[in-house]
């Protein structure tokens, strides 16, 4: 009786020791993030319909179904370049290949990290991937050379972007959905128009108001 009690106690203590060992071993993995030689300078877009900010990271499990279904091959997966918190989550590099808003990825997401949207104008208007920001000092049209490529690429012409004299583009941030098609189509190198996250755009606006 006494012996069995002792053996049960020792097995329980070894169980708890192993439990703690395993938990510590797994918890050490995020320390990969502390390794040197990693650039976080580049920013990428999320697929359309993505939940804002951290809510997306809470829901996305990195199953790659959105990458799998993308007919445009614009969605790729993060490696360690975005830090461990972005590992295996989808990204879009708009300058390389921008999203054409076919909404195929939003239909297959199993966890609801991408909200279901339809490939219609209404569905497009619900997308919030960022805001396009124009650098007028780089843009050809503002230098007197008529271009207008970005306006022709825009999926919501007349709403998100309008053109004036010499096809000078004007972005309307309240309607811009940040798909990045204008950034991909820009003929200038480096691009005169680029998409930034909406939160960063709001920060810039606040700073501009202060100064």
């Amino acid at each position, binding site marked *: 009786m006494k012996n069995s009690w002792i053996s049960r106690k020792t097995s329980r203590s070894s*169980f708890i020791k192993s439990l703690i060992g395993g938990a510590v071993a797994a918890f050490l*993995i995020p320390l990969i993030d502390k390794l040197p030689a990693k650039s976080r300078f580049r920013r990428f877009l999320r697929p359309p319909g993505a939940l804002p900010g951290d809510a997306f990271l*809470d829901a996305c499990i990195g199953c*790659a179904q959105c*990458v*799998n279904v993308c007919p445009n091959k614009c969605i790729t997966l993060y490696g360690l370049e975005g830090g461990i918190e972005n*590992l295996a989550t989808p990204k879009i590099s708009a300058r390389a290949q921008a999203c054409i808003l076919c909404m195929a990825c939003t239909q297959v997401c*199993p966890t609801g990290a991408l909200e279901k949207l339809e490939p219609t104008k209404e569905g497009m208007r619900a997308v919030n991937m960022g805001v396009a920001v124009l650098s007028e000092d780089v843009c050809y049209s503002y230098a007197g050379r008529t271009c207008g490529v970005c306006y022709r690429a825009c999926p919501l012409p007349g709403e998100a972007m309008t053109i004036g004299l010499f096809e000078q583009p004007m972005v309307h941030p309240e309607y811009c959905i940040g798909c990045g098609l204008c950034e991909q189509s820009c003929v200038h190198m480096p691009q005169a128009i680029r998409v930034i996250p909406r939160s960063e755009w709001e920060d810039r606006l606040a700073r501009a108001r202060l100064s």
Partner: protein
Amino acid sequence: MGRSISEGEVVMKATNVLLPLSIVTRLGVVLLLCFFAMMTEYLNYKTAYNNPRLVELASGKSVRVFYEATDAIFDFLGDPIEVAQSNGGMTWSIRVLGVPFTDPVAAISVFAKGGSWTWGFVLGLAVPVSLALIFGRVFCAYVCPASLAFYTMFRIRHVLEKWFLLPDLKLNRGFAWGVLIGGTGAAIWAGHGVWSLILPYFAVGQTLFHGIAMGTLSISLGSIVFFALLDLFFGPQFTCRYVCPTGRLLGFIGRRSLVSVRRDANRCIDQCNTCAEVCPMNVSPKLDQTVDCSLCGACLTMCPSNCLSVGNRGEK
């Protein structure tokens, strides 16, 4: 006498099926993952060109052959976009013929971090959990693509053990529970991506997907190599037995599974311990243990007296 031998041979043939079957189904899963990754490539060519000649001009003759072959497959399957919407993903969360499958560990991780599930995600749990309740840990022997690599390591160890003395470390079952708890903690702290380094089958899926669909090397390859070396030098099937949290969870869910390995005590030989020695999951059918049994059939193949069989747990 002669009759009993021929009866034994018939039983041998029936039980010999399980082990080759498990290897075939796991290879099938690997091929399915490769097919899904290549479907991504094909979809892009289909929507961009939709013409073999244009594909050849853009990417060369070999890609044209690939495109035409896949075109022939999709003539059979149907509209490529629709097929891609109802089939895709990897062993972590997969969708086959429109039916979603969710990993229980993914469900735990999402619930711990976000606090809520979507309906499709919960429905995806139905098949894996009920499979575990009926058959036990069959995922490990019949689906997991990583266990195929670890089984190869198991055989390589067998060969190496002729010349070298390799260690056989044993850990407590608590270690895998600890990895599950620590991994969930790391997922809450850093993101669900840490599972692609902890779970071997997720790492295999990531590596295949990165390699085939995107043409890049994944960090997950490092974790596969790490686990394979662990298997080679620490103990046979070390990862499956002591590290993998999914295996531990499924073993726990299926600890009283309906179907299990049964032993006919009258025919069992007392001095023989073959079944426990060949078991990749460290289970001893000799002692009537069935927790963690993945029904791989290794013991059925090796048993000299044919006293083992697979069937309903209640009937002896």
